[in-house]
């Protein structure tokens, strides 16, 4: 273990924190902590085994920028740890229990956020708070501000524009809850973001609004510096890998958009199909009322179609609630990622410009001035963070889409299985009396009804092999169709 783990991730370097009052100081007893336990994330150690002995005491935070090399190797180790799922986790966050609040001015929903953690940053092992969408939005903005070199996960859409969707309907609330849960879990899984103070406050503060009002500028050093990067520098050449990422994201977002449109179109067609089915089934019932022997079979078919309709309705609901929102989230995700990429470009541009300016001033010795060094440092950190996040993002994207698409396939399989069961169950109903009649087939059937005509008198008509003629007069209709697939 290197002597200065905190320096590896300057974005959360306690350097800036030391200047600030403890965010949790002066709060209620539930959150009271010792004055000296400024959260100083020792990521490596905290990740590994939560061994508190390894956490550096206050104050011993090294100054100066970390070298990108060590940060990336650190991140690699972290990534490894990420893969050992569950065992090395020391932070669990869940969103559940939506509740409606009716006030004079407005009505809104809050969700319960449950946090369990062994990290020192949390004074208590467990927290339970209630938050509303606004609060999530606040958190995200804060994260973007304070961690501009990282990719912040997306939130579900703020406004529901399409259709007449009830903001308080069970389905909508559940969809949103799942998305908010995913949002927090993504942050939890992130080795840097999960240690962010705003995140901590969000998870633990009794009164979040008070904190919001305090207007704490818990900006990291890099955050602070990136914030002040002026635009207007022209980027000379984007490193290949970031150019590739940019192109990838462009195409990715495009394809997702197409998939979203296709999925919506499918749902729309399915709903229209459902409408027709709902009219189709009952007609068999109407017919059944006219008939004697056919009444039961017809009624059976009607019920069957009804069951299929219900199954279809469930499919469309599932797709709307589970599939579309995730697609949209990823589109939002890639949008926010693109803006981070732009910022990175800006940082690089500024550095290059300053470097060039220095090169032109021949009086200066080859020694590089401090502010240009800062720029370089900034840029390299940004690049490292972004690269690491991109890899992480690629991995979870792959998992997420695998799960999403498998889920879509599953729902369709379940739909067909339900329909299959319905139709298979009425076959015996339809066939039972057929067996009884089989024996009296063709010839004798005529004979028994026409006493004056003997069996031998009839023209026995052989049917042509092709299946279609068989369906009209034959008995083997059922056997004909089974083998089509």
């Amino acid at each position: 273990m290197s002597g200065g783990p905190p320096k590896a991730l300057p974005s959360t370097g306690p350097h800036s924190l030391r200047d600030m009052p403890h965010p949790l100081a002066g709060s209620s007893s539930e959150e009271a902590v010792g004055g000296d336990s400024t959260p100083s994330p020792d990521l490596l150690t905290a990740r590994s085994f939560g061994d508190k002995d390894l956490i550096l005491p206050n104050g011993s935070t090294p100054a100066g920028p970390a070298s990108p090399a060590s940060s990336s190797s650190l991140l690699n180790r972290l990534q490894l740890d990420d893969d050992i799922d569950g065992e090395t986790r020391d932070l669990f966050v869940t969103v559940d229990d939506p509740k409606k609040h009716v006030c004079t001015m407005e009505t809104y929903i809050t969700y319960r956020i449950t946090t369990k953690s062994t990290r020192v940053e949390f004074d208590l092992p467990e927290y339970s708070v209630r938050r509303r969408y606004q609060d999530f939005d606040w958190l995200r903005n804060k994260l973007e501000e304070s961690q501009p070199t990282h990719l912040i996960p997306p939130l579900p859409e703020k406004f529901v524009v399409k259709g007449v969707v009830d903001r308080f309907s069970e389905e909508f609330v559940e969809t949103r809850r799942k998305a908010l849960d995913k949002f927090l879990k993504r942050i939890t899984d992130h080795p840097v973001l999960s240690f962010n103070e705003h995140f901590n406050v969000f998870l633990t503060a009794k009164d979040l609004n008070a904190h919001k009002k305090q207007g704490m500028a818990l900006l990291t050093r890099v955050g602070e510096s990136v914030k002040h990067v002026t635009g207007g520098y022209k980027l000379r050449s984007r490193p290949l890998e970031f150019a590739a990422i940019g192109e990838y994201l462009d195409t990715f977002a495009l394809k997702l958009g197409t998939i979203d449109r296709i999925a919506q179109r499918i749902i729309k067609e399915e709903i229209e199909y459902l409408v027709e089915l709902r009219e189709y089934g009952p007609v068999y019932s109407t017919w059944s009322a006219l008939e004697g022997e056919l009444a039961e079979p017809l009624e059976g078919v009607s019920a069957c179609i009804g069951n299929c309709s219900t199954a279809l309705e469930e499919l469309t609901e599932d797709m709307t609630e589970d599939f579309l929102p995730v697609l949209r989230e990823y589109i939002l995700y890639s949008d926010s990622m693109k803006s981070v990429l732009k910022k990175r470009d800006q940082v690089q541009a500024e550095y290059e410009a300053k470097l060039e300016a220095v090169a032109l001033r021949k009086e200066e010795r080859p020694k590089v001035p401090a502010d240009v060094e800062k720029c370089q440092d900034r840029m390299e950190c940004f690049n490292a963070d972004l690269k690491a996040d991109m890899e992480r993002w690629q991995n979870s994207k792959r998992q997420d889409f695998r799960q999403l698409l498998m889920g879509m396939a599953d729902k369709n399989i379940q739909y067909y299985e339900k329909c299959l069961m319905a139709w298979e169950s009425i076959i015996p109903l339809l066939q039972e009396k057929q067996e009884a009649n089989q024996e009296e087939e063709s010839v004798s059937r005529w004979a028994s009804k026409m006493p004056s005509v003997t069996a031998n008198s009839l023209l026995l008509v052989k049917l042509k092999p092709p299946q279609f003629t068989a369906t009209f007069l034959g008995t083997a209709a059922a056997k004909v169709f089974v083998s089509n697939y």
Partner: protein
Amino acid sequence: MEQAPLDPERRLQPAPLEPLGLPDAGLESVVGEEAEGPRDEGPGDGTMTENNFWLKKIEISVSEAEKRTGRNAMNMQETYTAYLIETRSVEHIDGQSVLTDSLWRRYSEFELLRNYLLVYYPHIVVPPLPEKRAEFVWHKLSADNMDPDFVERRRIGLENFLLRVASHPILCRDKIFYLFLTQEGNWKETVNETGFQLKADSRLKALNATFRVKNPDKRFTELKHYSDELQSVISHLLRVRARVADRLYGVYKVHGNYGRVFSEWSAIEKEMGDGLQSAGHHMDVYASSIDDILEDEEHYADQLKEYLFYAEALRAVCRKHELMQYDLEMAAQDLASKKQQCEELATGTVRTFSLKGMTTKLFGQETPEQREARIKVLEEQINEGEQQLKSKNQEGREFVKNAWADIERFKEQKNHDLKEALISYAVMQISMCKKGIQVWTNAKECFSKM
């Protein structure tokens, strides 16, 4: 009862049977050169037991359809489709079938045949023809009569019609039907020579009877209601089914778009690429599977259509009964009024209005001789009327008996066929579900490899 010995060498021998109710069908005179060998005369009493029973297995098929151009009645060029009808006799010995007849017919000739059967067998529920024009179409189906799919389905429908007629115990023996299968040229003239068009009941007369009849057999009234409702419900069913097919088609086809976009997406992915690409292929398979599925369903629709048209045939039998019953009632009424007149003339009381009565009043009484003459005429008429009434009564009863027998036969056939149709429909649905499960399972596996 005699039975014709099974003799594969012998050509198809019809036993010309007088159509019921028409003592002098005049068919005897229509003899094609094919008729050879011993033939039983069909007696005019309309029973079947005495006739020549012949056991002959034949196969009838409408095997081909061909577009033709020709000149129509107004010497204008027209395009029509001709259908090849082949008749084979099935030999027992070596199981081989020998082609005995083969000729081409067009739809209008089928119509002619059916109209003839309707006139000569009014007590029979005559099998219907497939629709003249494409109805109940959905967007993918063409409403064009020359469309190959429509022609194909019609070919099957026409074959089915012939098979139904051939397997009907009474209709199969009809000479005109036999000639339809065997005599290409001149058949139309032959049919027309029977003069059946003249014997057909006018629609107006039938309509009138339907409204005015006082005492029809209750069963026929019920049957009429049933056939009306059956027509209505099957039409409704076919219309909605067409819409359902349309929508289902849309659902499947849109999935095909996934194929393309997955393929494009896979191009920018490293590990996910293969899984996406192969999943996309399965989406294409899924999208294209709907064509066969819906083609099969069209045959189900055709089976329903047949019974939709059968409902009309049922109605026709009911109409005939109403007509006969009305005729009977009118004859009875007429007879009663004549009797009344006679009585009045005899007794001198005038209760009924008659023109003679009026003129007598106006211009003076008639002489006793005149009256006697009138009475005599009336008595003759009454006699005749009573004879006619008796035979009409008998005819009516015969008709009811025979018609009802055929209706029972039809009911059995209908129940059997429709149950079969429902079973095959269920089987189609099951097959569709299984295909769906297969495709999505394959896709799921591809996704799992992403």
